[in-house]
């Protein structure tokens, strides 16, 4: 379980995270929604410690992080191993083959043998239907394929949680569907996931829990049914604002 208490981050003229208190249950898919600039990405990146809030408390499994203190490097690395990250523009390593992209972490961070890492990588590639791309370079693949590979890269580390930072925002609808199908499959396998997205349909169909963020504050936290069928005034505006 992930638990955040009083997490706060301020830039000079912008309150990115305003007293965030949240729990993310294991084996569930939590979708974070909200308008641009609401702090969704900042929140997600804080869980991977790519972003450092100034205060608050973060618990993941047995690890405790106090954001008001300097975080020891060892703890940072540990937390990152527990939280895989999938980026909006996938950020694969361009100089490595697909296979190497996926095995880089298992071999050099988890100290797995090459054979073991490659076997796991192949299984993952088959899962996302891209086993035939293993010897190619990222630049030879489409965006949708690269994003599925980056999901494999995150899964190969066997993290407790996978964090998705707008994983389909840079893709056209067809490629987006390829990626969403993978996410749906993961959700059905009870993988713990936290997904920042603008795709309302995905939230409706896949989420176990929805968090709505605005101006760095949690406006709503609850089930899919509550969110769509009994929306607050603000959420109603947000949802109808997307129709045309």
């Amino acid at each position: 379980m992930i638990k955040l208490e009083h997490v706060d981050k301020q830039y000079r003229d912008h309150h990115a995270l305003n007293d965030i208190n949240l729990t993310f249950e294991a084996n569930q898919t939590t979708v974070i929604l909200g308008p641009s600039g609401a702090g969704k990405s900042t929140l997600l990146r804080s869980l991977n410690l790519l972003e450092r809030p100034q205060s608050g408390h973060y618990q993941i499994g047995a690890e405790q992080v106090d954001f008001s203190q300097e975080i020891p490097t060892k703890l940072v690395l540990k937390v990152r191993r527990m939280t895989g990250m999938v980026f909006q523009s996938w950020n694969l390593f361009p100089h490595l083959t697909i296979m190497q992209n996926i095995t880089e972490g298992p071999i050099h961070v988890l100290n797995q043998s090459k054979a073991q890492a490659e076997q796991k990588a192949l299984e993952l590639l088959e899962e996302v239907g891209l086993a035939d791309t293993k010897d190619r370079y990222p630049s030879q693949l489409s965006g949708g394929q690269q994003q599925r590979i980056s999901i494999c890269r995150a899964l190969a580390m066997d993290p407790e949680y996978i964090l998705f930072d707008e994983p389909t925002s840079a893709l056209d609808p067809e490629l987006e569907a390829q990626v969403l199908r993978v996410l749906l499959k993961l959700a059905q396998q009870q993988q713990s996931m936290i997904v920042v997205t603008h795709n309302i349909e995905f939230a409706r169909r896949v989420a176990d829990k929805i968090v709505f963020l605005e101006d760095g504050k949690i406006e709503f936290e609850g089930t899919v049914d509550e969110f769509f069928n009994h929306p607050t005034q603000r959420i109603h505006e947000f949802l109808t604002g997307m129709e045309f």
Partner: protein
Amino acid sequence: MWDIIVSSTPEIVWAGIKYTIPLAVISFIIGFIIAVFTAIVRITTPKGNPVVLFFWRLLKWFLNFYVWLFRSTPLLVQLFIIFFGLPNAGIQFNAFTAGIITFSLNTGAYCSETIRGAISSIPDSQWEAAYSIGMTHRQVLFRIIFPQALRVALPPLSNSFIGLVKDTSLASSITILEMFMVSQQITAKNYEPLLMYSIVAAVYAVFCTVLTILQHYLEKRMSRYVQVTGE
């Protein structure tokens, strides 16, 4: 004329093999190591206790000073100070060593800027992606960032290397019997400056052409992962 070409060219090429090439290759290797070290120190700010930070800052300041010094003074003057000047301060090198030291430090100063720029050109998202799978700073730098930066740095590094090969002709002024010095000596005997200096120029050109071909080969090899494809 043909006789002169046939008799003197081997002598000049031999001087090249004996002095020009070793000077250039050894200096470039040492210079490259200095450059990588300098670039990495200059872009890194370590966390840690104040004592470590203080010494790090001191080292940074020293390296900044070094790069400034060697980029702001002529190479010929640097050679003269290290070979003719330092003995007055009780530090004496033979000519070849003095040459290696000067060329290494000079190349290191220029290449450190090349490498620093190349590292900065790799997008932050690459650092983040590597950090996100739990890599340490050192792993990210040497396994993810550096290989990509090297590709970016290859053309300017080749420039520096080719420049260095030609700059070794300045070593003649500190008594090293490299190609240019040999051509001068032959000229003193046969009074054919146009011919002799043209021959030595041609040999330099051949050396540099070989390097250019090597550069293209390396560029191709290192760029095999860069392709333009549609979706």
